[in-house]
């Protein structure tokens, strides 16, 4: 079998053609894109103003009649609703717990209830723009002490919560 070497000049020409083709494609795509940007930046004249709104905190309200699910040593959900005053929807992905209060602190001190660790929500909580979430809950968010006294029966606990998330 006899090998025939392609001349170097032919090889160079082939490479040049390829480079030309590639840059041709680039130009074909980039030029219209550039035109688009130019239209955005040059359209209109004079001045106008718009002010960005200031995001407001959403309000978390404890459920008025939470399900009675706590007993000594048991965990239960925290129940609440969220009201969104902002004109955009919000999704919360994490929670931090604060002070616990008891509806009958003399017979059942708040120290009998322990919130879970702060952190990510198992299921994100979404709230519509300028709307309310309705009843929502965070499962297994609190645990009643195994030695909670008899006086804790029927007691309602309130836990301060801070939800964190973003516009969705």
């Amino acid at each position, binding site marked *: *079998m006899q*090998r*025939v070497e392609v001349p170097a000049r032919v090889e160079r020409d082939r*490479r040049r053609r*390829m*480079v030309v083709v*590639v*840059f041709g494609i*680039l130009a074909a*795509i*980039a030029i219209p*894109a550039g035109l688009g940007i130019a239209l955005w930046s040059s359209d209109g004249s004079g001045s106008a103003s718009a002010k960005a709104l200031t*995001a407001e*905190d*959403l*309000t*978390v*309200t404890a459920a*008025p*009649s*939470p*399900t*009675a*699910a*706590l*007993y*000594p*040593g*048991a965990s*239960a*959900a*925290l*129940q*609440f609703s*969220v009201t969104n005053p902002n004109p*955009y929807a*919000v*999704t919360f992905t994490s929670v931090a717990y604060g002070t616990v209060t008891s509806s009958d602190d003399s017979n059942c001190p708040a120290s009998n209830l322990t919130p879970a660790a702060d952190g990510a929500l198992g299921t994100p909580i979404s*709230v519509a723009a300028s709307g309310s979430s309705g009843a929502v809950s*965070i499962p297994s*968010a*609190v645990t*009643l002490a195994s*030695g*909670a006294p*008899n006086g*804790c*029966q*029927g007691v*309602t*606990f*309130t836990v*301060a*919560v*801070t*939800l*964190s*998330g*973003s*516009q969705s």
Partner: protein
Amino acid sequence: MEHVVARRPRRRPRVVVAVAAGVLVVTTAGPAVSLYGARGVGSAGAKAASLHVPPAPAIGSTTGLALACLVGLSWSAPPAGEQYTIRRTIGATTVVVAGPTATSGSTTDSVLLTQLGAGKVPSYTTTAHWVTAPAWTRVSPTATASGCLDLL
């Protein structure tokens, strides 16, 4: 027969194409979207369960036998997950007559007449508690076996 074998072109053109494609992807990507952070502040609630007040044991009969008063008692079945304990109190002394039990039942309690007297009448209560959390209890109203006093 003559075979013409061309040398493979160098890879540089492919590299150029790949880089160009990357530039295109970056160029055509939209602007980064910035979302407002959000915070919800307030409180949430949780409630402890409570046992229902159980019914007092029913006193069926009080009969005398020698120096004792026999009191017939019965009780209904507790709700699922609960148990009942029947207790008798005379003065300051309280004893368990039956239970804890998760079923309905009946028994006869024998009270020595010597234990009874002015202001000392056998009275009975039902105490309810959860099987899984026996520390919490709820006590029924009191049922009094006043018929025993007639035997004195």
